[in-house]
Structures are given as structure tokens and as C-alpha cells.
């Protein structure tokens, strides 16, 4: 799909919601080098959301949706939780079905799309919270990786069950006192990035969403590798400021503090050999494209 498919019949143009008109006029479907810098200048594929003021998850959502390499042919799969409050406002087809089954849904979906659109790119991206990914859905998360299903799994790690009010989760730090962990969590934060690597993911990154340019890079890499090679996994720290006792303005600082060397969200990356090769090829092509564009611009000036 490109903007062609969302075009409005002239006769009906004036009765369409302005939100839709804006999508046709200035959204970034089909834009080759779309990225986080489009935020603020182009129509975003996500707008209003009903998350808490200052929620880092809302930033993460914006960066990710802005960075999808081809949203016009991407289907997203969510799960129950705070993300399911945002997905209804995302202008990319997205599925919510149950809590924790997102990687099973994505497995069936990706296979159906591959079967129905041979030779065409149809990306599938899962985006779910840590309860959905690591606790209730861990079986289906891992099994999709074992089977080498070709889609990207993104986990918004806020280290607790935010939507139900801050209960203990598997990705919570040991010792943290929360609902359902009244004397502090008794076991270590689950090491899912390492488990992802061992389970066959070809591209794994753990980081915070403090830097939009980094999110753009890792999202694009994860989608490209999933498209060509096999499963990829991103674990992004999106602290629930409400449940860890911070104010609306403190989300960014919380992420910056947590990504320092030796902190639990210090940047971590695993890339398989085939994925390294693919990313190197893509980087070379991108360099070529930029050089050609520069040359073209130079010629135009001359």
C-alpha cells in the first residue's frame, strides 16, 4: 500500500474527518527514508493517546511507528495492557486478540500474508508489554523464536504490570516492593535478551527509549533482519512513572539514569552472523544511495 490506497474520492473529500484528510496529505506511507525526524513535520501515524501524561511508553510508540520502514505494508500485533489503549489510534492495521498470545497470532498472520502475497513485503511487528511477553506469553514468545518465525517482537519493559496497577512481573528487579510482591520480589529480573539469543533470535537489543535516533536504528534493523532472516527481539525500557513514584517530567531522566554503564538497561546487542552480513549490505547500499543523492544535488546546483 502507498498513499494511493487511502486517497479520498473528490466528491467525498469534504465530509471525511480532517484527521483522515491529513493522513492523505502529509503522512509518510511510502516515504523511503522515513524516520523519527518526521515527527512534528509530517502527519504521524499515531496521534492522541490515552496514556498518562509524560508516559515514556507514548514516546516509544511515536518513535517506533515513525521508524517502521514500510508502514504501508506492516501489520502490528499487540496484547492486553497499556499498549492496547494506544493501538486503536494507530493508522496501521493492528490486531488485539487476547492477553499473551501475541507471538502466536503473529506466527499465523505472517504465514498467511506470506502465502497470500508471494514476492511482496509484508512485515509483521509484535509490540507488547513485559507481562504479555515474559510471563503469561513466554511459551508462545519462545516457541515463535524456536520455529524461526520471521517477525519482530518488541517488548515494552516497564518492569511491572502497569495497566492493572503495578503488580510484580518477571522483568521486575529483585527486591522491588510492589503489589503481589509485598516483601520485595524474590527472584532476579528474567534475562530475556540472553534467552532470546539462545532461542534463535538473529538481532537482539536491550536499551531505553531516551534517544529517538537509536530507536529508529534498532527498529529498522530488527524489521529488516526479521524480513530476510528470522526472528528479532527488542526490549525497550519504558518506565511506568506512576508506579515507581516519579513525576510526569521525570521519565526521560529515569531512562538516562538506567542506561548508564553497568546499570540494568545499559545498551546490549546480539547480532547473528547472517544478520551482521545483511546489515552490512544494507548499510553499504544506504551509503551508496546517500552519495548518489548528494551527487545529484550537486549537479542540480551546478
Amino acid at each position, binding site marked *: 500500500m502507498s498513499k494511493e490506497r487511502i486517497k479520498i474520492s473528490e466528491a467525498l473529500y469534504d465530509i471525511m474527518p480532517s484527521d483522515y484528510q491529513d493522513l492523505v496529505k502529509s503522512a509518510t506511507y511510502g516515504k523511503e527514508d522515513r524516520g523519527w525526524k518526521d515527527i512534528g513535520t509530517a502527519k504521524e501515524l499515531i496521534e492522541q493517546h490515552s496514556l498518562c501524561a509524560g508516559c515514556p511508553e507514548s514516546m516509544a510508540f511515536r518513535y517506533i511507528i515513525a521508524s517502521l520502514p514500510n508502514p504501508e505494508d506492516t*501489520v502490528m500485533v499487540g496484547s492486553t495492557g497499556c499498549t492496547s489503549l494506544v493501538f486503536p489510534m494507530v493508522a496501521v492495521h493492528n490486531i488485539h486478540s487476547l492477553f499473551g498470545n501475541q507471538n502466536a497470532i503473529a506466527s499465523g498472520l*505472517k504465514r498467511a*500474508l506470506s502465502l497470500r502475497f508471494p514476492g511482496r513485503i509484508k512485515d509483521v511487528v509484535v509490540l507488547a508489554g513485559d507481562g504479555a511477553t515474559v510471563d503469561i506469553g513466554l511459551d508462545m514468545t519462545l516457541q515463535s523464536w524456536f520455529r524461526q518465525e520471521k517477525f519482530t517482537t518488541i517488548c515494552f519493559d516497564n518492569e511491572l504490570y502497569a495497566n492493572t496497577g503495578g503488580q510484580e512481573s518477571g522483568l521486575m528487579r529483585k527486591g522491588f516492593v510492589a503489589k503481589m510482591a509485598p516483601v520485595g520480589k524474590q527472584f532476579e529480573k528474567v534475562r530475556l535478551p540472553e534467552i532470546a539469543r539462545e532461542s534463535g533470535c538473529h538481532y537482539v537489543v536491550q536499551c531505553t527509549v531516551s534517544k529517538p535516533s537509536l530507536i529508529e536504528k534498532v527498529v529498522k534493523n530488527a524489521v529488516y533482519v526479521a524480513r530476510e532472516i528470522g526472528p528479532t527481539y527488542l526490549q525497550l525500557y519504558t518506565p511506568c512513572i506512576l508506579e515507581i513514584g516519579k513525576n510526569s517530567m521525570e521519565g526521560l531522566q529515569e531512562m538516562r539514569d538506567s542506561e548508564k554503564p553497568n546499570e540494568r538497561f545499559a545498551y546490549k546487542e546480539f547480532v547473528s552472523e547472517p544478520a551482521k552480513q545483511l546489515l552490512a549490505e544494507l548499510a553499504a547500499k544506504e551509503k551508496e544511495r546517500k552519495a548518489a543523492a548528494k551527487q545529484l544535488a550537486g549537479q542540480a546546483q551546478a
Partner: protein
Amino acid sequence: MAETQSLIGTQNKKGQTYTDPWYMLNEALRTPSFFTGSEVIKEAIRRASCDIMIAYPITPQSEAAALIGELFAEGYVGDYFRGESEFAVMSQCAGASFGGARVFTTTAGPGTMRAMENFPMWAGARLPIQMIVTCRGINSPLSIQPDTLEISYLLNTGMMVWHAETAQDFFDWILKGFIVAEEPDVHLPLALCCDGFFVTHTKDVVQLTPADMCLPPYDPYRSPVPCMDMECPPVRMMRDPFVMKSNYISYATHASWQQEVWAAVERSRKHAIRWLDGLIDAENTDAEIMIVASGTAVSQGREAIRMLEDEGVRCGLVKIKTLRPWPADEIREATKHAKHIFVPEFNVTGWLAKEIRATIPDHHRVYAGPHVCGGMTMPPEIIVSEIKTALGMKTFSLAGRGS
């Protein structure tokens, strides 16, 4: 529809001709074959233009699920894999159906129960997945034997639920099931149930449609809800998701959606009547005694009626084919002359008798029995005995204590 219809007469990659379903199922020459129920499932799917089948082993459906794997290896099914549990399999089926594929799966007993959360989701998302349920016990201690209790759990999911009596029903209804489920005014999942082992593991003569004819492929753009493939504009659904709102608009939205799912079940009625030749079969409805049953209990009832006839007792029969939609009017009409209505069942709770009692006037006429469960067979003699005992007739004891 136009896209799918225009393929009729053309061939798929296996050389099968996409055929008008009515012609294929009602007019094309059939060949008798001697098959197990599991093999019959395979033969139906061979002709079903099925895109994706997702399998998981559980007795007694494992053989059928594995046989469809062979069909995949032969190229008759687009994709096939073993999921990790029934819960996951039913979600994988949902994903494939959201993506516009014709999806088929099989399950049984505890697997059906494990997957249960998916079924109202399938119905709510209007996914026309077909699931074969080869019923077996769900009780503890562990049992793998025939028992139809699991069907009762499916009745309020919003799925269509059909209950096949024979392997022939099974063959025809799998193919017809896709047609009814995919109608735009229905577009709902179908649980096609049979009694495990009795149907799956016994051989029977089944009249097969020609192997070189198959159903036209599924057209996901006939769906009443958008197919999740980014081939149509992705609308923003709402500004405030109803999930978190405690207000009247939110309740009304959910209520109307539930009502619409059940209205779709009702709208499937006319299609099922056409394709299954009525939601029930009824014989001798002028008799004072009627047996009303579904599944293999119908076969046993038929045999009991023959035995009663030998003794001069006249008894009619109602075979219920669809449990959802529920043939309330048909059952009321067929039982209006009956003074005594017997409902033989392969389960401990007698759920079918309860449904019938809730449907007909003067429900004291309904005798909930005989019941067998836990894998017990139902010899026609116990139906005869139940009827004669209830009517105050003399019966012989069926089994002695030994001497």
C-alpha cells in the same frame, strides 16, 4: 465474491478444478470408499482449498491432524505446522485468519478446554475458522475415551456448533461448513463436532466427491470486518478505547457487538438449512414416543427404534444436526405429538436434554437419558430398557451380577 466466482472452472496447482460448491456437493458423481473417520477428514480437506492447517497432537484427533500434514507435503494445503499447545494453536489459527487465510484445525477434549479463551475471541473477531472437535472425556482421572461433555462448553462461545453423526456427515459438513462460515452475513467460526473413536477410528462406507474438484478459495474481502493485511485503509478506530471506559457508550458498544455475533449465528440458520437439508432430520413424528439426539446417539437411537418395533412399540426419531444455531422451532414442531421424549447422551450432565427442556412446552415429557459417560458405549438395549421402564413396561435385566 466476484474474484472467487471467476476462478470457477480454472485449476489449482494440483490440477483440481475450482467447482461450484452446490454442483460439487449435490450433483457431481460420488464414489463409495471404505475409510476411517480420520481418513475422511483428510479427504474433505483435500477438496477444501484450505490455506493453512495448524496441528497439535491429542487423542483421538492426532491421526487426522497428521494426515493433513501429508496433504501439505503433497501440496494440497498452503501451510502446515505443529503448534506448541492448543491455546497457541487456536491463536495461530486466529492470526492466519486475521491475515485472510482459510484456516482449519482439529482438537479434542482437554485440548478444547485449554484453548477455550480463544473461541469467543474468534467469534468476536468474526474469523471463519473451522475447528473439528473429536470429542473425548475431559474429566480427571485422565481419560481418552469418548464423551461429549466438551460440546456443552462451546455452546455459548458465539461459534456455530454442528454435531455430525456419521463419517458421511463429517465429509459433507466439513466442505459445507466452510461455505456457511464464510458467508458475509455469517462470517463466524464453526466447531464441527463428532464423537471421538466412534466416528474417527471406525471404518465406514463414505460417498466421496470427485478428487479433481475442489471448493473455490476463500475471499477475505467478503468479510464484514477488514482483513488485517494493509490492503485497505487503516482507520483509527476510536479516540478513547472502550476497554477502559466505564460509561454507557462503552457498555452499549460491547452489548451491540455481542448481539451482532449472535445475530450472525441466527443468520447462519438459512444457509445451514439449505446446505444440510434442514437443521434436524425427523422420522415418524406422529408417534407418542420420540427419541431426540445428536451425534452417534442418533445411530444408537435408530437401532433401539428397530428393536422396539419388533415388540410392537412405535417410536419416532429426531436427529439434531446443528446445536448453534439451535433448531428450536423444528424441535417444537417435531415433538408436538409426543407424550414421551427420550434424550440419549454420551455425557454425565445431560446438556442436550436441558436444552430441549428449555425449548419445548410441557417439558415434563423429556426423559434425560439414558446417559453413558467416561467412554461407556451405549448399546441400543439400554435405550430400549430406559423407554420401557419409563412407560411401566416389563424389561429384562441387561446384565446379571454373575453367579
